Protein backbone atom coordinates (compact mmCIF):
# COMPACT_ATOMS: atom_id res chain seq x y z
CA UNK A 1 0.00 0.00 0.00
CA UNK A 2 1.40 3.39 -0.93
CA UNK A 3 1.85 6.17 1.58
CA UNK A 4 -1.61 7.70 1.67
CA UNK A 5 -2.59 10.98 3.27
CA UNK A 6 -4.22 10.90 6.68
CA UNK A 7 -7.89 11.83 6.73
CA UNK A 8 -7.14 15.21 8.26
CA UNK A 9 -4.49 16.05 5.68
CA UNK A 10 -6.69 14.76 2.87
CA UNK A 11 -9.75 16.61 4.11
CA UNK A 12 -7.90 19.91 4.43
CA UNK A 13 -6.27 19.62 1.01
CA UNK A 14 -9.52 18.54 -0.64
CA UNK A 15 -11.37 21.38 1.09
CA UNK A 16 -8.87 23.95 -0.17
CA UNK A 17 -9.08 22.41 -3.63
CA UNK A 18 -12.88 22.74 -3.62
CA UNK A 19 -12.59 26.45 -2.80
CA UNK A 20 -9.94 27.13 -5.44
CA UNK A 21 -11.67 25.12 -8.16
CA UNK A 22 -15.02 26.81 -7.53
CA UNK A 23 -13.37 30.21 -7.47
CA UNK A 24 -11.26 29.55 -10.58
CA UNK A 25 -14.21 28.59 -12.76
CA UNK A 26 -17.01 26.38 -11.40
CA UNK A 27 -17.75 23.65 -8.87
CA UNK A 28 -16.35 20.33 -10.01
CA UNK A 29 -18.49 17.58 -11.47
CA UNK A 30 -17.87 14.38 -13.40
CA UNK A 31 -20.95 12.35 -14.29
CA UNK A 32 -22.35 14.55 -17.05
CA UNK A 33 -19.10 14.02 -18.93
CA UNK A 34 -20.03 10.35 -19.31
CA UNK A 35 -23.14 11.56 -21.12
CA UNK A 36 -21.01 13.88 -23.22
CA UNK A 37 -18.66 11.01 -24.09
CA UNK A 38 -21.59 8.83 -25.15
CA UNK A 39 -23.03 11.71 -27.11
CA UNK A 40 -19.81 12.24 -29.03
CA UNK A 41 -19.39 8.49 -29.62
CA UNK A 42 -22.98 8.30 -30.88
CA UNK A 43 -22.26 10.97 -33.48
CA UNK A 44 -19.66 8.67 -34.97
CA UNK A 45 -21.89 5.61 -34.90
CA UNK A 46 -25.35 6.87 -35.74
CA UNK A 47 -26.19 10.44 -36.54
CA UNK A 48 -29.88 9.52 -36.38
CA UNK A 49 -29.52 8.44 -32.78
CA UNK A 50 -27.56 11.53 -31.86
CA UNK A 51 -29.83 13.93 -33.69
CA UNK A 52 -33.08 12.48 -32.40
CA UNK A 53 -32.16 12.23 -28.74
CA UNK A 54 -32.68 15.41 -26.71
CA UNK A 55 -30.45 14.25 -23.89
CA UNK A 56 -27.51 13.48 -26.15
CA UNK A 57 -28.03 16.80 -27.87
CA UNK A 58 -27.99 18.56 -24.53
CA UNK A 59 -24.65 17.00 -23.61
CA UNK A 60 -22.78 17.37 -26.85
CA UNK A 61 -20.19 20.02 -26.07
CA UNK A 62 -16.63 19.42 -24.99
CA UNK A 63 -15.66 21.92 -22.32
CA UNK A 64 -13.96 22.65 -19.00
CA UNK A 65 -15.45 19.67 -17.24
CA UNK A 66 -14.48 17.21 -19.95
CA UNK A 67 -10.89 18.47 -19.65
CA UNK A 68 -11.21 18.11 -15.87
CA UNK A 69 -12.15 14.46 -16.32
CA UNK A 70 -9.16 13.89 -18.63
CA UNK A 71 -7.02 15.62 -16.02
CA UNK A 72 -8.31 13.34 -13.27
CA UNK A 73 -6.94 10.35 -15.17
CA UNK A 74 -3.52 11.95 -15.59
CA UNK A 75 -3.46 13.18 -12.02
CA UNK A 76 -4.06 9.65 -10.84
CA UNK A 77 -1.32 8.41 -13.16
CA UNK A 78 1.20 10.97 -11.91
CA UNK A 79 0.36 10.38 -8.26
CA UNK A 80 0.50 6.60 -8.66
CA UNK A 81 3.86 6.64 -10.43
CA UNK A 82 5.42 9.08 -7.95
CA UNK A 83 4.16 7.05 -4.97
CA UNK A 84 5.51 3.83 -6.43
CA UNK A 85 2.29 2.23 -7.64
CA UNK A 86 1.77 -1.50 -7.58
CA UNK A 87 1.12 -2.25 -11.26
CA UNK A 88 -1.74 -4.10 -12.93
CA UNK A 89 -4.47 -5.73 -10.86
CA UNK A 90 -7.80 -7.33 -11.60
CA UNK A 91 -9.31 -8.37 -8.29
CA UNK A 92 -9.39 -6.21 -5.14
CA UNK A 93 -8.33 -7.97 -1.94
CA UNK A 94 -11.56 -7.86 0.03
CA UNK A 95 -13.63 -8.72 -3.05
CA UNK A 96 -11.43 -11.73 -3.71
CA UNK A 97 -11.78 -12.97 -0.14
CA UNK A 98 -15.56 -12.87 -0.48
CA UNK A 99 -16.17 -13.89 -4.10
CA UNK A 100 -13.10 -15.84 -5.12
CA UNK A 101 -10.61 -15.63 -7.93
CA UNK A 102 -12.80 -15.22 -10.99
CA UNK A 103 -11.79 -12.10 -12.89
CA UNK A 104 -14.85 -12.53 -15.07
CA UNK A 105 -17.17 -12.25 -12.07
CA UNK A 106 -15.26 -9.22 -10.78
CA UNK A 107 -15.49 -7.56 -14.19
CA UNK A 108 -19.23 -8.25 -14.23
CA UNK A 109 -19.70 -6.66 -10.80
CA UNK A 110 -17.65 -3.68 -11.91
CA UNK A 111 -19.61 -3.31 -15.15
CA UNK A 112 -22.99 -3.53 -13.40
CA UNK A 113 -21.80 -1.17 -10.67
CA UNK A 114 -20.60 1.26 -13.30
CA UNK A 115 -23.93 1.11 -15.06
CA UNK A 116 -25.76 1.88 -11.81
CA UNK A 117 -23.51 4.74 -10.70
CA UNK A 118 -23.81 6.67 -13.93
CA UNK A 119 -27.49 5.87 -14.40
CA UNK A 120 -28.17 6.97 -10.82
CA UNK A 121 -25.96 10.03 -11.13
CA UNK A 122 -27.68 11.24 -14.27
CA UNK A 123 -31.05 10.68 -12.68
CA UNK A 124 -30.00 12.74 -9.69
CA UNK A 125 -28.12 15.30 -11.74
CA UNK A 126 -24.76 14.71 -10.11
CA UNK A 127 -22.39 12.25 -8.47
CA UNK A 128 -19.91 12.15 -5.58
CA UNK A 129 -18.09 15.11 -7.13
CA UNK A 130 -21.04 17.12 -8.38
CA UNK A 131 -23.46 16.59 -5.52
CA UNK A 132 -21.59 15.38 -2.45
CA UNK A 133 -18.38 17.37 -2.76
CA UNK A 134 -19.49 20.43 -4.71
CA UNK A 135 -23.14 20.52 -3.70
CA UNK A 136 -22.26 19.72 -0.11
CA UNK A 137 -19.77 22.58 0.02
CA UNK A 138 -22.50 24.90 -1.23
CA UNK A 139 -24.87 23.59 1.47
CA UNK A 140 -27.34 22.48 -1.22
CA UNK A 141 -30.16 20.51 0.39
CA UNK A 142 -30.71 18.18 -2.58
CA UNK A 143 -27.01 17.34 -2.72
CA UNK A 144 -26.83 16.54 0.98
CA UNK A 145 -29.92 14.33 0.68
CA UNK A 146 -28.26 12.61 -2.31
CA UNK A 147 -25.18 11.96 -0.21
CA UNK A 148 -27.28 10.48 2.56
CA UNK A 149 -29.18 8.22 0.17
CA UNK A 150 -25.91 7.07 -1.43
CA UNK A 151 -24.45 6.10 1.91
CA UNK A 152 -27.57 4.35 3.23
CA UNK A 153 -28.03 2.50 -0.05
CA UNK A 154 -24.37 1.53 -0.19
CA UNK A 155 -24.48 0.21 3.36
CA UNK A 156 -27.47 -1.97 2.51
CA UNK A 157 -25.91 -3.24 -0.72
CA UNK A 158 -22.64 -4.01 1.10
CA UNK A 159 -24.61 -5.91 3.72
CA UNK A 160 -26.28 -7.95 0.97
CA UNK A 161 -23.01 -8.60 -0.83
CA UNK A 162 -20.93 -9.41 2.22
CA UNK A 163 -23.72 -10.95 4.26
CA UNK A 164 -22.70 -9.28 7.48
CA UNK A 165 -24.51 -7.51 10.25
CA UNK A 166 -24.18 -3.77 10.61
CA UNK A 167 -21.83 -2.91 13.44
Amino acid at each position, binding site marked *: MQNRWSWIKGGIILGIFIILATWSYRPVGVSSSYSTAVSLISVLISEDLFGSNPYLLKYSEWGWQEMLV*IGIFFGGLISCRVSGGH*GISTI*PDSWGKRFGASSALRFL*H*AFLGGFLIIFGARMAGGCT*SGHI*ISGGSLLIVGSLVFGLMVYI*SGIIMAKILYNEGIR
Partner: protein
Amino acid sequence: MNILILGLGTGIIFGIIIQKIGASDYDTILGAFRLKDLKIPKVVLLAISIGSVGIAMLNRFGVTPLYLLPFPVFGIVIGGIIFGSGMALSGYCPGSTLVAISEGKIDAIFCLLGGLTGALFYALIYPYIRFYTEELLNLGKISISSLLGINHLYASLIFVALILASLYFFDRTKDASKK
Protein backbone atom coordinates in the same frame (compact mmCIF):
# COMPACT_ATOMS: atom_id res chain seq x y z
CA MET B 1 -5.99 31.54 -19.60
CA ASN B 2 -7.66 29.05 -21.89
CA ILE B 3 -10.60 27.49 -20.07
CA LEU B 4 -9.79 24.04 -21.37
CA ILE B 5 -6.24 24.15 -20.04
CA LEU B 6 -7.58 25.42 -16.72
CA GLY B 7 -9.93 22.45 -16.61
CA LEU B 8 -7.11 20.04 -17.38
CA GLY B 9 -4.92 21.47 -14.64
CA THR B 10 -7.75 21.44 -12.13
CA GLY B 11 -8.47 17.84 -13.02
CA ILE B 12 -4.86 16.78 -12.63
CA ILE B 13 -4.81 18.18 -9.10
CA PHE B 14 -8.15 16.53 -8.36
CA GLY B 15 -6.84 13.20 -9.64
CA ILE B 16 -3.75 13.44 -7.44
CA ILE B 17 -5.95 14.17 -4.40
CA ILE B 18 -8.31 11.26 -5.18
CA GLN B 19 -5.33 8.92 -5.52
CA LYS B 20 -3.57 10.13 -2.37
CA ILE B 21 -6.62 9.78 -0.13
CA GLY B 22 -7.30 6.26 -1.37
CA ALA B 23 -10.73 6.97 -2.86
CA SER B 24 -9.90 4.84 -5.90
CA ASP B 25 -9.32 1.80 -3.73
CA TYR B 26 -12.16 -0.77 -3.71
CA ASP B 27 -11.20 -2.03 -0.24
CA THR B 28 -11.29 1.50 1.20
CA ILE B 29 -14.69 2.36 -0.32
CA LEU B 30 -16.28 -0.91 0.72
CA GLY B 31 -14.67 -0.43 4.11
CA ALA B 32 -16.75 2.74 4.40
CA PHE B 33 -19.98 0.97 3.38
CA ARG B 34 -19.24 -1.96 5.66
CA LEU B 35 -18.67 0.59 8.46
CA LYS B 36 -15.17 -0.75 9.09
CA ASP B 37 -13.06 2.09 7.67
CA LEU B 38 -14.66 5.51 7.84
CA LYS B 39 -11.67 7.36 6.40
CA ILE B 40 -13.36 8.50 3.19
CA PRO B 41 -16.56 9.78 4.86
CA LYS B 42 -14.37 11.71 7.32
CA VAL B 43 -12.26 13.19 4.52
CA VAL B 44 -15.38 14.22 2.59
CA LEU B 45 -17.10 15.75 5.63
CA LEU B 46 -13.98 17.70 6.61
CA ALA B 47 -13.46 18.84 3.03
CA ILE B 48 -17.01 20.05 2.44
CA SER B 49 -17.09 21.86 5.75
CA ILE B 50 -13.85 23.71 4.97
CA GLY B 51 -15.06 24.24 1.41
CA SER B 52 -18.38 25.63 2.54
CA VAL B 53 -16.77 28.30 4.72
CA GLY B 54 -14.30 29.28 2.03
CA ILE B 55 -16.93 29.49 -0.69
CA ALA B 56 -19.30 31.36 1.62
CA MET B 57 -16.57 33.92 2.28
CA LEU B 58 -15.79 34.28 -1.43
CA ASN B 59 -19.49 34.75 -2.03
CA ARG B 60 -19.73 37.28 0.79
CA PHE B 61 -17.04 39.37 -0.89
CA GLY B 62 -18.78 39.10 -4.24
CA VAL B 63 -16.04 37.01 -5.83
CA THR B 64 -18.01 33.89 -6.57
CA PRO B 65 -21.72 33.09 -6.96
CA LEU B 66 -23.49 30.30 -5.12
CA TYR B 67 -23.99 27.73 -7.85
CA LEU B 68 -27.19 26.23 -6.49
CA LEU B 69 -28.66 23.00 -7.81
CA PRO B 70 -32.38 22.16 -7.76
CA PHE B 71 -33.89 19.50 -5.53
CA PRO B 72 -36.13 17.21 -7.59
CA VAL B 73 -37.06 14.77 -4.84
CA PHE B 74 -37.61 11.63 -6.92
CA GLY B 75 -34.54 12.13 -9.05
CA ILE B 76 -32.34 12.79 -6.04
CA VAL B 77 -33.68 10.03 -3.81
CA ILE B 78 -34.09 7.27 -6.39
CA GLY B 79 -30.92 8.34 -8.20
CA GLY B 80 -29.06 8.31 -4.91
CA ILE B 81 -30.28 4.82 -4.05
CA ILE B 82 -29.29 3.51 -7.47
CA PHE B 83 -25.92 5.29 -7.27
CA GLY B 84 -25.17 3.97 -3.80
CA SER B 85 -25.90 0.39 -4.74
CA GLY B 86 -23.70 0.74 -7.80
CA MET B 87 -20.88 2.23 -5.79
CA ALA B 88 -21.00 -0.64 -3.29
CA LEU B 89 -21.04 -3.12 -6.16
CA SER B 90 -18.15 -1.64 -8.13
CA GLY B 91 -16.23 0.10 -5.36
CA TYR B 92 -15.82 3.10 -7.64
CA CYS B 93 -17.54 6.38 -8.41
CA PRO B 94 -17.47 8.24 -11.77
CA GLY B 95 -14.27 10.14 -10.91
CA SER B 96 -12.40 7.49 -8.95
CA THR B 97 -12.95 5.00 -11.79
CA LEU B 98 -10.58 7.04 -13.91
CA VAL B 99 -7.96 7.22 -11.18
CA ALA B 100 -8.30 3.48 -10.65
CA ILE B 101 -7.73 2.85 -14.35
CA SER B 102 -4.62 5.05 -14.24
CA GLU B 103 -3.40 2.90 -11.34
CA GLY B 104 -3.65 -0.23 -13.46
CA LYS B 105 -6.88 -1.65 -12.05
CA ILE B 106 -8.36 -3.58 -14.94
CA ASP B 107 -11.76 -4.01 -13.26
CA ALA B 108 -12.16 -0.23 -13.30
CA ILE B 109 -12.08 -0.33 -17.09
CA PHE B 110 -15.19 -2.51 -16.97
CA CYS B 111 -16.73 -0.05 -14.53
CA LEU B 112 -16.08 2.72 -17.04
CA LEU B 113 -17.64 0.69 -19.85
CA GLY B 114 -20.65 -0.01 -17.66
CA GLY B 115 -20.86 3.68 -16.90
CA LEU B 116 -20.90 4.64 -20.57
CA THR B 117 -23.57 2.00 -21.15
CA GLY B 118 -25.58 3.44 -18.26
CA ALA B 119 -25.23 6.92 -19.72
CA LEU B 120 -26.50 5.68 -23.08
CA PHE B 121 -29.40 3.84 -21.46
CA TYR B 122 -30.34 6.92 -19.47
CA ALA B 123 -30.31 9.08 -22.58
CA LEU B 124 -32.62 6.60 -24.31
CA ILE B 125 -35.22 6.46 -21.53
CA TYR B 126 -34.88 10.10 -20.49
CA PRO B 127 -37.83 11.41 -22.49
CA TYR B 128 -40.12 8.95 -20.71
CA ILE B 129 -38.96 9.53 -17.15
CA ARG B 130 -37.89 13.16 -17.08
CA PHE B 131 -41.24 14.38 -15.79
CA TYR B 132 -40.85 12.18 -12.73
CA THR B 133 -37.17 12.74 -12.12
CA GLU B 134 -37.03 16.47 -12.81
CA GLU B 135 -40.43 18.11 -12.57
CA LEU B 136 -42.68 16.15 -10.25
CA LEU B 137 -42.01 17.36 -6.70
CA ASN B 138 -39.10 19.67 -7.45
CA LEU B 139 -38.42 21.72 -4.34
CA GLY B 140 -36.22 24.17 -6.20
CA LYS B 141 -32.73 25.46 -5.61
CA ILE B 142 -32.68 25.35 -1.85
CA SER B 143 -29.63 25.50 0.35
CA ILE B 144 -29.42 25.05 4.10
CA SER B 145 -29.15 28.82 4.43
CA SER B 146 -32.16 29.57 2.23
CA LEU B 147 -34.18 26.83 3.90
CA LEU B 148 -33.53 28.15 7.38
CA GLY B 149 -33.60 31.76 6.30
CA ILE B 150 -30.17 32.56 7.67
CA ASN B 151 -27.11 34.23 6.21
CA HIS B 152 -25.10 31.78 4.10
CA LEU B 153 -21.79 32.51 5.78
CA TYR B 154 -23.29 31.96 9.23
CA ALA B 155 -24.90 28.75 8.01
CA SER B 156 -21.54 27.49 6.73
CA LEU B 157 -19.83 28.35 10.03
CA ILE B 158 -22.51 26.46 11.96
CA PHE B 159 -22.17 23.58 9.47
CA VAL B 160 -18.41 23.36 9.89
CA ALA B 161 -18.69 23.61 13.67
CA LEU B 162 -21.20 20.76 13.77
CA ILE B 163 -19.10 18.59 11.46
CA LEU B 164 -15.83 19.26 13.26
CA ALA B 165 -17.47 18.56 16.60
CA SER B 166 -18.93 15.29 15.28
CA LEU B 167 -15.61 14.23 13.76
CA TYR B 168 -13.73 15.08 16.94
CA PHE B 169 -16.09 13.22 19.25
CA PHE B 170 -16.35 10.28 16.87
CA ASP B 171 -12.58 9.97 16.78
CA ARG B 172 -12.35 10.20 20.55
CA THR B 173 -14.96 7.53 21.21
CA LYS B 174 -13.32 5.29 18.63
CA ASP B 175 -9.93 5.66 20.32
CA ALA B 176 -11.45 5.14 23.75
CA SER B 177 -13.01 1.86 22.64
CA LYS B 178 -9.64 0.52 21.54
CA LYS B 179 -7.88 -1.38 24.34
